[in-house]
């Protein structure tokens, strides 16, 4: 038991860098601006939170009209579980295997069971934190609006932390199986592909649930919504029985369904935990051993390669290629960066592949007077998605210990920044094209899609430059686990906040322009020109900031 506690402590200390922070802020009293910055970021995110709470409230009132308030609770439970399932998969596989941290534990006299429990607790807490920000307020909103009693809040406090447990157990078992199998055959490269495919499969399964026969017949809009909601609820109930149990546990009288709900929910979770630990004992280590092996061909260096040496390239293209290779050859970068986003877009495309949903689309098409909103929604989705990938906001941090090479080489800082900018822009363009295709499925006309792409590229470019600038200001080069470079950065958080504000201002300006009845073509044209100008300015600004910062950043 003692070594289990030591393992848990170690995991929490390393995963959340508690020792580093304590030493830095409390002992050496250095970089005290960082905690300050953190609070600033929280403040920036506050308006988003307020909007979210408002949205939850509105949903509550909407549902209370048709006496379906508990659907809101059910929705929260499902949202928490789906989030944990979906993002958890990449997180678990990176954290458990790809980080290589477990390898350093192999020589220690600890059992796989202890390692697994400690790691799982770390994963669970990390997944719980975002849910605490996004979903937990929802439960409070529900409690306040339905004037629930003490037992409700008590129940929420007890049950909330358990929400992501079951999905995380599922993905943990799944990851251990994948790693075990892929390791037997020593095909490490294959693993990455398999991992992605399984991730996609999980999402498609979730997706199937959203498809199907929501709408029986195309009557009035209100009736349609009501039907959609009712079929939504029945689907939630069949696919996520846990959500019903939680709702019962929270809202039904204790000695009727309430107790049953508690029993079923807790029982299932405990059972799943037990199962995971039992299989994990024998599955975990065999998957870890040799986790960092890469296939080594040791081919004799032939004359064919001689031709390759011959071709000298410009420094810019060399830098760009380096960005590209380092990103896509580090699974943790793209698994935690663009992979979830690509799947998100892909899955929303899958949404359109059912006949019944087509009716919703055609319903939308009939009522739409203009497709302009699609252009603006698309463009704003682009910048949010590309800031969520953190490709730009981690572009300097990703260099990590190798940052010394960037200081060493005789290349102007501006050129290195340009390579990073081109790289993140190429990723953004890929996302934009993907989004454009999805929009096409939804029946958005080509001209609107083209406008969306044009404006989206300009916006994404600005947003990428801002990400690079923020990363130059507060880089995180001290990581040991590549996941930290893309996931745990102030720059990434700040960028999302900043993008939110910029998008808000822009939306306001455009709304005013429409209000005054300016022709839509003119608005789009002016926006485009304006954005191009801003791009130029931000590029110059970013280069200047980076030039100054590169002198001082030390890896």
């Amino acid at each position: 038991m003692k070594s289990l506690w030591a393992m848990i402590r170690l995991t929490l200390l390393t995963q959340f860098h508690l020792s580093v922070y304590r030493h830095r802020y409390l002992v050496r009293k250095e970089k005290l601006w960082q905690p300050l910055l953190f609070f600033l970021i929280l403040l920036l995110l506050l308006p988003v939170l307020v909007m979210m709470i408002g949205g939850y409230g509105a949903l509550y009132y909407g549902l209370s009209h048709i006496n379906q308030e508990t659907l809101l609770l059910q929705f929260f439970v499902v949202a928490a579980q789906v989030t944990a399932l979906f993002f958890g998969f990449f997180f678990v596989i990176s954290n458990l295997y790809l980080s290589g941290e477990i390898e350093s534990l192999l020589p220690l006299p600890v059992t796989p069971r202890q390692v697994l429990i400690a790691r799982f607790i770390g994963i669970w807490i990390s997944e719980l934190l975002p849910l605490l920000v996004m979903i937990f307020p929802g439960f409070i909103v529900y409690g306040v609006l339905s004037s629930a009693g003490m037992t409700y809040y008590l129940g929420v406090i007890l049950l909330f932390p358990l929400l992501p447990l079951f999905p995380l157990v599922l993905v943990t078992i799944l990851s251990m199986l994948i790693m075990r199998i892929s390791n037997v055959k020593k095909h490490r490269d294959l693993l990455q592909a398999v991992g992605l495919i399984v991730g996609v499969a999980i999402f498609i399964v979730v997706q199937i649930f959203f498809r199907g026969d929501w709408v029986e017949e195309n009557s009035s809009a209100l009736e349609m919504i009501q039907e959609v909601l009712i079929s939504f609820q029945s689907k939630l109930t069949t696919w996520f029985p846990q959500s019903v149990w939680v709702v019962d546990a929270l809202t039904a009288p204790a000695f009727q369904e309430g107790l049953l709900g508690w029993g079923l929910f807790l029982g299932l979770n405990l059972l799943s935990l037990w199962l995971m630990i039992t299989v994990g004992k024998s599955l975990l280590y065999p998957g870890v051993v040799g986790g960092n092996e890469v296939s080594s061909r040791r081919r004799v260096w032939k004359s064919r390669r001689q031709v390759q040496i011959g071709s000298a390239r410009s420094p810019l293209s060399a830098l760009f290629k380096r960005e590209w290779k380092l990103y896509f050859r580090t699974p943790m970068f793209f698994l935690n960066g663009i992979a979830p986003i690509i799947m998100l877009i892909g899955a929303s495309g899958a949404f359109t592949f059912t006949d019944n949903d087509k009716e919703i689309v055609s319903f939308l098409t009939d009522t739409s007077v203009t497709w302009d909103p699609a252009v603006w929604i698309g463009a704003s989705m682009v910048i949010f998605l590309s800031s969520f990938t953190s490709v730009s906001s981690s572009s300097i941090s990703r260099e990590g210990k190798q940052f010394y090479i960037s200081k060493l080489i005789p290349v102007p800082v501006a050129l290195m920044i340009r390579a990073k900018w081109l790289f993140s822009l190429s990723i953004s363009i890929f996302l934009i094209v993907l989004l454009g295709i999805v929009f096409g499925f939804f029946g958005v006309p080509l001209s609107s899609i083209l406008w969306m792409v044009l404006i989206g590229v300009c916006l994404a470019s600005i947003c990428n430059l801002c990400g690079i600038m923020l990363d130059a200001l507060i880089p995180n080069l001290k990581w040991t686990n590549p996941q930290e470079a893309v996931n745990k950065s102030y720059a990434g958080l700040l960028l999302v906040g900043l993008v939110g504000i910029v998008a808000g201002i822009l939306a306001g300006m455009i709304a005013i322009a429409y209000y005054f009845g300016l022709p839509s073509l003119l608005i789009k044209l002016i926006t485009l020109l304006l954005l191009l100008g801003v791009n130029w300015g931000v590029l110059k600004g970013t280069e200047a900031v980076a030039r100054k910062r590169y002198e001082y950043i030390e890896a």
Partner: protein
Amino acid sequence: MIRLQNISKRYGNSPHKAVDQLNLEVASGEIFGFLGPNGAGKTTTIKMITGIVKPDEGEIEVDGVSVLKDPLEAKKRIGYVPDGAAPFEKLTGMEYIQFMADIYQVPTEERVDRLPKLLSQFKMEEAVGDLIQSYSRGMKQKITLIATLLYQPSVWILDEPMVGLDPQSAHLLKEQMREHSDAGNTVFFSTHVLEVAERLCDRLAIIHKGRVIAYGTLEDLRKGKGDGVTDEETLEKLFLELTEET
């Protein structure tokens, strides 16, 4: 040629300077050894010369070009092999060499001319197509050595280059260093292997707690110690005496 004038560096708000008012001058065509106990400030000094760390004060010149005022021009002349060389793990050896050659704008003919020879000398022909991640410590060292030698820097700076090399490669490296300096270039390296320093260096400096405590040819160092020192005294003994804590 390398010239350091009164350079100092303090990390964060540490009470001690890692490098303290250091002065050094290394001429072209010589091999200069940089010795000192662990934590003496060797790596810090080297990082300042190569532009990785900015000195708090002082002036650094490489071939007469100021590293602080004209970093790009200065960096073009420098080849740096860090201690525990850690090039990009996710590139293959060849891709890394190519990257460096592109950055230092090595013309095609020179690449075709030098690379096959270097690869065969360091016995890296087979491994060069693999990811650096799969290399052993010594192989990583060799790939960085090859990458720097490819562009023939006029100032070659190596931080503990012998660590991790097998006897053949260490011997080869010593030959390369000699060849490079004979061609009129500067070779500056830090080491803990005193026999290497003794036999290879034209001149050397011993630093301790960020300050130069001895500087010159091995002969000079012996003389500097005054009476009790015989001609046979090894560098090891000198080193131990000079860096002894009082």
